[in-house]
């Protein structure tokens, strides 16, 4: 079994933990003993962190709405359709009519890229996230 160093994905305590991986599946969680916050401890949400990762309801392919229904599509179709739609709206109405929500659940690197995309590619500062909620 592999022990992979990670950080709990729930609250802002940021507990250090090890994901226990067996045959490509996360099967359990162990707290780090020398992590400055967790110190060998996790709360109930942390101990059961692995349970949602392999939930059968996880999305596994891109979806596009066709005739009112979300249907499976390829990445190329979904990305091209999105790029064209955003470009068309930017062209017709201007960049400030597009809004972006970043995520307190994504990494720093992803949030950096998303705000760079919003500001440099879409051309607007309309970006925020749920810090206030």
């Amino acid at each position: 079994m592999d022990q992979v160093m990670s950080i709990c994905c729930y609250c802002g305590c940021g507990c250090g933990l090890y994901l226990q991986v067996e045959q490509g599946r996360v099967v359990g969680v162990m707290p780090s003993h020398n992590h400055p916050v967790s110190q060998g401890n996790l709360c109930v949400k942390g101990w059961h962190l692995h349970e949602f990762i392999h939930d059968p309801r996880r999305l596994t392919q891109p979806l596009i709405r066709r005739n009112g229904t979300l249907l499976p599509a390829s990445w190329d179709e979904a990305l091209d359709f999105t790029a064209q739609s955003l470009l068309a709206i930017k062209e017709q109405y201007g960049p400030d009519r597009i809004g972006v929500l970043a995520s307190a659940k994504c990494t720093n690197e992803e949030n950096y890229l998303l705000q760079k995309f919003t500001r440099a590619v879409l051309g607007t500062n309309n970006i925020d996230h749920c810090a206030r909620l």
Partner: protein
Amino acid sequence: MAGLATTFGSGAMTNSINELSSAQVILLSGSNTTEAHPQVARRIYDAVDQGARLIVIDPRQTAMASLAHIHLQLRPGTDIPLLNGMMRCILDENLVDELFVEMRTENYIPLRDLLLTIDLNEVTATTGVSIKDIARAARIYARAQRSVICYCLGVTQHICGTANVQSYAGLAMLTGHVEREFTGVDPLRGQNNVQGACDMGGLPAVLPGYQMVADPVVRDKFDRAWGVCLSDKPGQTLLDMTHGAGSPGDKLRAMYIMGENPMLSDPVLDQVEATLDSLDFLVVADLFLTETAARADVVFPAASFAEKNGTVTNSERRVQYMNKAIDPPGAARDDGWIIMELSRRMGYAMEYESSAEIMEEICLLTPIYGGMYHDRLIDNWGLQWPCSDRAHPGTPFLHKFSFARGRGRFQPASHVPPAEPVDSAFPFLLITGRSYHHYHTGTMSRCCPTLNREHDKPFLDMHPDDATRLNIPDGSRVQVTSRRGSCKFFLRYCQSLAPGDLYCDFHFHEAPVNVLTLSARDPEAHCPEFKLCAVRVEEVI
């Protein structure tokens, strides 16, 4: 965040979580710490075991309040008069740290003038807390060498949230309880990377590292780094976006939502729904088909935290590295890949080989992250910002020797009554929050069988006296109605609330609490008044 940024110059925890266990006095406000931040609660227990005094300011008798030496059970939304009362006592008893106020702060005289007009009898009438308790709490907090304030969304999610925070910061400065280890003002962050999403400029008025969009020098730096000409117009806030604010000419036509679920988390859900439905184009990236994703035109399947490399920043500003443990399911991809692919298809190449390469760009452009190179964060538990360069060891506590903004600024405030007071038609005040077993909109936690087994129903907590008066038995189905909508809960008798107050969680899509809440919000931070709205309760027969 706006509250601490305007008083201290930086909107983050001033201490490390570990420092709490060595404090002599902990003043905890608006935080159900044992349920929402269990590890912080452990440090508070440790401190109390070692003889620290605990003061809790909360309208609910939380587990922390039961342990407290003094529980100031104020009426919801009366933090400002309570703090003005405490500060008046500190002034009257000569407990002001005159040297600190003189050397390190500004704007003290207007605060003193305001405090001298405070009538403590009036404070008691407004807050429901006795003068004796206010004075005791003030003395204990002011006299100790190492006093620390912790607060959470019970302080910020009010129409006067910014002024609330400024008042807590004022109390700390008045008594010199900042700038040293074990003393300070600590907002507890609710999400694993809410600090980082702010740090990275996921905000409408600031670029990474809180560098202002409005500052031409800052824009020039990013213009050159990114090869574009950035807009100088600050963007719309989240509630403006999800509530379709502004004139019809400003309304959004398209949105890209990455891993958020405003269809459960935002106030006045009817309005959010109308806004999302009015868009020409909505794209959502998420792990699950959330209430929000179900309304999208395109849905991207995203990778979970275990399926990618990258860093997250916790409440104490600690930037920590997460290792990829497994591959994402099916065709799901991480958000970084999705953004890069989209950007390329829109004519702007973003080519990063790895998340480490993205971080190198962040380090170059963001002074507080200047030394956060991945190779320094791998195989250890990270570094705390500010961390200016490769040799910098990180910063466990802030504002040593001087505040980030130079001098700390007192911002005197007066009582702001709740946006929606109770009346005969809507006689109860509803407070919302989080439970121990679930998390935010439940997208992840409600997929965990163990957590569901422990807690699978939306409860409404009510004091037994109120329930008896209304003749509703424990466990009944009840309907809660506000001026905006209604939803159904299971009633739970609860001694820890004051009669007249109600409490519920917001994790359950079958009881979407935010159809009830107000969109009234703080004018500076735009934080909605989630903690208070007027409702009535009926049994469902």
